[in-house]
């Protein structure tokens, strides 16, 4: 009996002292720079800075632009995994904010919009980081416009991902026929949920409380 109790106690102690799984967050922010949406980049900067204030030590963040060909590391503007020491993490955040600021200054409009490529890149990046929470923020009008020769009709695995579309602006054509806008959002929702992810849209950038 005593032996059993000892074993039980030891097992409990080992369970209590065992290192727990990751509790960090990974954020991948895609910024659409195609056509007229490039003018919204300043708003995207606000979102990025807000995300930086919310992130904690050991969290990961990457900001990438959506242009003609988004499935490439070259599109990543800035990325960082914060140190677990708060002071170092603060320094990293300040440096990250500087990089984003530079990008906003020099951002040029792209002729096409490859959202799927950006999402693939985001999934790949966050899967490599092995974070507990995985959030993909898409700052775009969600209108995909692929250049000739780009194949993006591929299934996406969003298992364990939260995909949040931010500031999904209405196009001129949407004003003529709002069904296009709604159909566009529904299509993306279906795609994300089919891939096992969770889809959300936030258009009011003054109410970002639920974000991260």
């Amino acid at each position, binding site marked *: 009996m005593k032996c059993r109790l000892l074993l039980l106690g030891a097992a409990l102690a080992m*369970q*209590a*002292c*065992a*290192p*727990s799984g990751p*509790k*960090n967050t990974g954020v991948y922010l895609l910024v659409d720079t195609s056509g007229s949406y490039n003018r919204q980049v300043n708003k995207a900067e606000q979102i990025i*800075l*807000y995300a*930086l*204030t919310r992130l*904690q*030590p*050991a969290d990961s963040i990457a900001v990438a632009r959506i242009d003609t060909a988004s499935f490439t590391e070259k599109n990543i503007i800035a990325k960082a995994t914060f140190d*677990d*020491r*708060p*002071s170092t993490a*603060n320094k990293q*955040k*300040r440096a990250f*904010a500087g990089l984003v600021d530079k990008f906003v200054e020099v951002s040029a409009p792209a002729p096409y919009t490859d959202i799927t490529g950006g999402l693939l890149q985001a999934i790949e990046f966050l899967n490599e980081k092995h974070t507990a929470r995985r959030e993909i923020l898409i700052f775009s009008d969600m209108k995909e416009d692929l250049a000739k020769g780009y194949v993006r009709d591929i299934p996406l695995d969003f298992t364990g991902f939260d995909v949040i579309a931010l500031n999904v602006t209405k196009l001129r054509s949407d004003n003529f026929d709002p069904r296009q806008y709604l159909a566009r959002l529904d299509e993306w929702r279906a795609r994300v949920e089919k891939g096992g992810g969770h889809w959300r849209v936030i258009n009011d950038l003054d109410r970002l409380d639920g974000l991260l």
Partner: protein
Amino acid sequence: MSMTSLLAFTPWPAVSAGILLIFLIVAMYLARNTAHQAIQAAAGVLARGLRLASHSVTHAHQRLGARNREVLLAAGREAKERIVEREFARVGDTVRKDLASYPDMHRRLSEAIVRIEEDQEKAVEVPPQAPGWGQAVKVIANLDVGNAGTAILSDIHKSMVKAHARAMDDYRKASSERHALLRRMMPDWRLIHETLGRVDKSVESVIERSLAIDHRMEEYEAIVRGEDRAVSVLSSSSIVYFFVSALVLAVATAGAAVNFTLIARPMAEMVGGTNFVGAFRTADIAALVIIMVEISMGLFLMESLRITSLFPVIGALSDKMRVRMMIITFAILLLMASVEAGLAYMREVLLQDELATSALLRGDGAGSMVNGYLWITTAAQMGMGFILPFALVFVAIPLETFVHSLRTVVGLTGIAILRVLALILRVLGNGCRHLGALAQRVYDLPLCVPLWIETRAAAATKQGTWNTRVSRETKPLQEAQS
């Protein structure tokens, strides 16, 4: 079998129901005695079981009460022994202090007395009297020498006046010397007075202490005799100590929480802010460990100082070892207090850094403004970080009281619970017995008609028997009368 099919053995369900009811009542009437016995047995078993349980709980309550009484008396005895020991130590100190200075005091008193005696003896000496010229004057006055006698008398007069003047001078001188001697006695008198005053004070102090010891000894004897009054006093004291020490411990816990808040954030810089052990952050655990170590050091320091006696091993150490332990624990405490002060400073620095970063990210210029009075909060945090570990040292005193009084309070609570449990069991036992009687009456309720018939039949039988007996007894009488 459904109710409809049950009532279908005649074409009229009401009739069927009536017949069934009659059968049921007859069956119940026939089984009445057995049913009553079963109910009575069941109720009796339950009542006896509950009463037995109640007795058992009462026994447990008595045993716990006796144990609690023993614990209380032992604790009270120990406390009184300590108090009496301390009083004796105080008396010993007083006596030792006075006795240590007694030879010196005695010497000074003797010297003062000798000086006073000498001075007194000197003061008693009377100056020499002027020479007696009276006889010579008488002889010369009786001589018939003419004017020559007058001259002689005149010379004698002069000599007498001179001698008188000298005698007066001597007298004044002697008086002055005596006064000087008496004046010189004054400091000695004062010395004697003061010394005796001190002795009186010491004696009074010893008497007071001895009265206190007498009082404590009376209480101690009452405890040793195990008087109820002593137990009652000890019990109420124990409850008071329990609540007071619990209150102080709650305050100390709040202090420890403040301490934790001061050092938890900067600890993240040392051990990382994202490591977890189980569900807890490693930084939080590290901060908690520091506080616990400080409290432990405080306990050891108090034990080494013999203020508390939670660890008899420390109390039994030699004085040399205890002093060493005292120095070591104090040094560790000082070191940890300094570390905490440093961590508190670092906390403020980190906080400012974080605020500045947040302000920068928000694009808020006001957030990055430097507060001119920031040094006050920084200094206050550092001060608290340094002082709190030393303040937590004193937790050992209420902790010891809490631990000691907890035994008694737990015992008293146990006694109260057992007493209530015993009462409930007894009430339930009696209730079961009465419920059994009630169940018998309820069983008899549908049998009212057959029971009434039975009663009537019994009465009739009794009446018949009575009539027969009366007629049998009166028949011979009537025959005799006729």
